[in-house]
């Protein structure tokens, strides 16, 4: 089963993303900040990472950079959850190695349709 790591400091956003994914048959692992996300990523085989950008302790961009340093995460799709779709955001994301972005506010159907670009 496809396993998705959901990283967001907002409990309700995290719950909603996780709920949406689960109802579509994905398995989810949750983390509340970048560091927590990194720890959890090291612990299990992840097929997709969905992470918020603005988080305490370690933000999403840094998490992305750190994940890319891990050999098993070299090609894992990492999507940034962000309210900005500005060019600046895209550049920062890409520079960190992100695969793509998902725009907030969060829309469940759109999320499910969009992640099909990177997972089965």
């Amino acid at each position, binding site marked *: 089963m496809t396993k998705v790591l959901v990283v967001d*400091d*907002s*409990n*309700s*956003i995290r*719950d*909603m993303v996780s*709920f*949406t994914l689960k*109802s*579509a048959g994905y398995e989810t692992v949750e983390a509340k900040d970048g560091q927590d996300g990194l720890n959890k990523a090291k612990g299990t085989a992840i097929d997709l990472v969905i992470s918020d950008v*603005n*988080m*305490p302790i370690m933000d999403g961009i840094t998490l992305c950079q750190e994940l890319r340093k891990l050999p098993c995460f*070299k*090609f*894992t*799709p*990492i999507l940034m959850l962000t*309210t*900005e*779709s500005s060019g600046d955001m895209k550049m920062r994301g*890409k520079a960190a*190695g*992100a*695969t*793509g*972005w998902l*725009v*907030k*506010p*969060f*829309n*469940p*159907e*759109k999320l*499910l*349709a*969009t992640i*099909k*670009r*990177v*997972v*089965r």
Partner: protein
Amino acid sequence: MSVDLSQFIPSFLEESFEGLELMESSLLDLEQGDDETINSIFRAAHSIKGGAGTFGFNNVTEFTHLVETLLDEMRDGRRNIKQDDIELLLDSVDCMRLLIESIRDETECDTSKIFETSVLLEKTLATDGIKVSDPLTINDSEIVESKTDDLSTWQIKFIPEHHLVQTGNDPLLLFNALADLGEVTLVACAKELPALNDIDAEEIYLTWNLTLESSASEDDIKEVFEWVEDECELIITKEDIISSDLPSLEISSPVLSTETPSFEEPDVILPAPTNEKPVETSTTNSDKPSSKAKNDLGSIRVGVDKVDSLINLVGELVITQSMLSELGNDFDLSKVERLNSGLEQLLQNTKELQESVMRIRMLPISFAFNRFPRLVHDLSKKTGKEVELILKGEQTELDKTVMEQIGDPLVHLVRNAVDHGIESAEIRLANGKPQKGTIMLNAYHQGGSIVIEIKDDGGGIDREAVFNKALEKGIVDENTVLTDAQTFDLLFEPGFSTAKEVSDISGRGVGMDVVKKNIQSLGGRIQVESERGKGSTFRVNLPLTLAILDGQLVQVGTETYIIPLITIVESLQPQKELINRVSGDMVLYRLREDNVPVIPVYQLFNIPCEFENIENSLLVVVEADGQKVGLMVDDLLAQQQVVIKSLNDNYQQVEGVSGATILGDGSVAMILDVPGIISMALAQAQLNQKNRSTFQPKITQSISEGVSS
């Protein structure tokens, strides 16, 4: 498939309130250069905005966007942190709170303040020339299926750069997603594929030509490839020919032939992936999700430890029950001993279980104290006085209901303290006091109650002014003699206010009597201590648990009373030698080193009593507020647990009585309020003393006259 997220609204609302509290307390503490704090404030606003957007709470999203933009500039260093901006942000937090409350309560909210504040926010943002972008156009969260009615054929040429997969993207999966828009056939071109030995496994050498039959728009197609647009070449051409297989094949074949690979590897033709048709246009964002908050009777967060303790105790209860049940089978007198110990065990279990359950409703008073830093900050600004707030004992726990109801009275008392208690900076300095006034809120447990003190180091209460005002109102006359405590009690009379002008904060005189009433309706009391020039202390006493009490039944004359066990130090039969009469009719009992005043309850309560002297009575020594007294009773009866019933429901608060209960025989018994009784006795004694002292000169005069004549 439509995902229903409305179940997450309550938790989003709760989270938002917490976020707002965090924003508020952080803003109050914020100083220049404090990166972590400003970031956390930003994140809180950001989260609220994001969540609100998901549920379509557009008014929240729009307003919060302005706040977030300002915070963003501050955290980026593009804007210095100024006090005015902090005030504006504090006001904004209030607005956000109003908006979210109106969502939770499903009511209309007062938009005037919100409108004013957003105008101010926009103005502030504009002063740095930063144009605020429209939050809603940035995120178009609805799936807009630009369904043109006609099916078109699109030719898409996809030429990825070699390192595309290193971004985590996979062309095949992109094609998967593309298939959501319609039927896809594709042909791969392996022209660039190097020799096997030279292939780098982490690179892509293929390119593709896809044919898509769909009513989607070019933008829709581009969107599928949006993440890789910088890492590929994408050529999209539309053919207007509708659903005819042959022509499309003809067009694609020339493309095929020019790209015949040199090493004769067959072209890879992939069948169109079978995917479901894309879902219908999402409407979840346009409907207003129903908030379940209205039917919620309020919830309480309970620590897991409390729940576990409860589970354990119930377990023990079950064991005791089964033990007793077993005893009941073939019971004979030889088992009496075991029965008694079983019942003892049952008593213990029930008691512990009860305490544990009560504790579930207990929350730390910090929930009530939380609003005060902001309140004092605002009041201090408004009055121009410098006031510091100290909070102590925030972890002291009390019943949730009591806490909810004590909030407003406490606010009124704190307002009073700032407004009337603390003097202006000039006066304070002139009196050798520090310029900054201090207000301390302190909460602690004492006996079976919780005490909340509101202490200020202000100017104290003017006894004379209070007395004169009472005189004016006809509550007392010139000859009335009052103790300090009684004078201060006058402050709680309805319509009483000594403020010379009615200040808009608290001088209106409607407050204090309502404060007292509220406190009393919770079974509590309020006392005032004050020293002119030094300050005042308002002490609120509230019962910890509203419902149950361990009591000692006593007989006084014809009446049965209940003394809370927790107040009882000891009960004894007084020895004649240890009884001392002092200054008239005050009786003291020598209890080891203490001289304990004896209170004749029958006298205090005006009960006809047979034995009116202490030698024939029993003494129950009780303690309250650090004071020990001996209550004179006729007899000690049983000790039992009683359910406290308030007299306030149908009657009113009675001095000396904290409530009533129904005994086993169905009759009603009064529960004594020990601190209240002590006050009563004190007041009585002081009054007697004053009356006596005014008497004496007359007596001596007449005696001397009698003698001389």
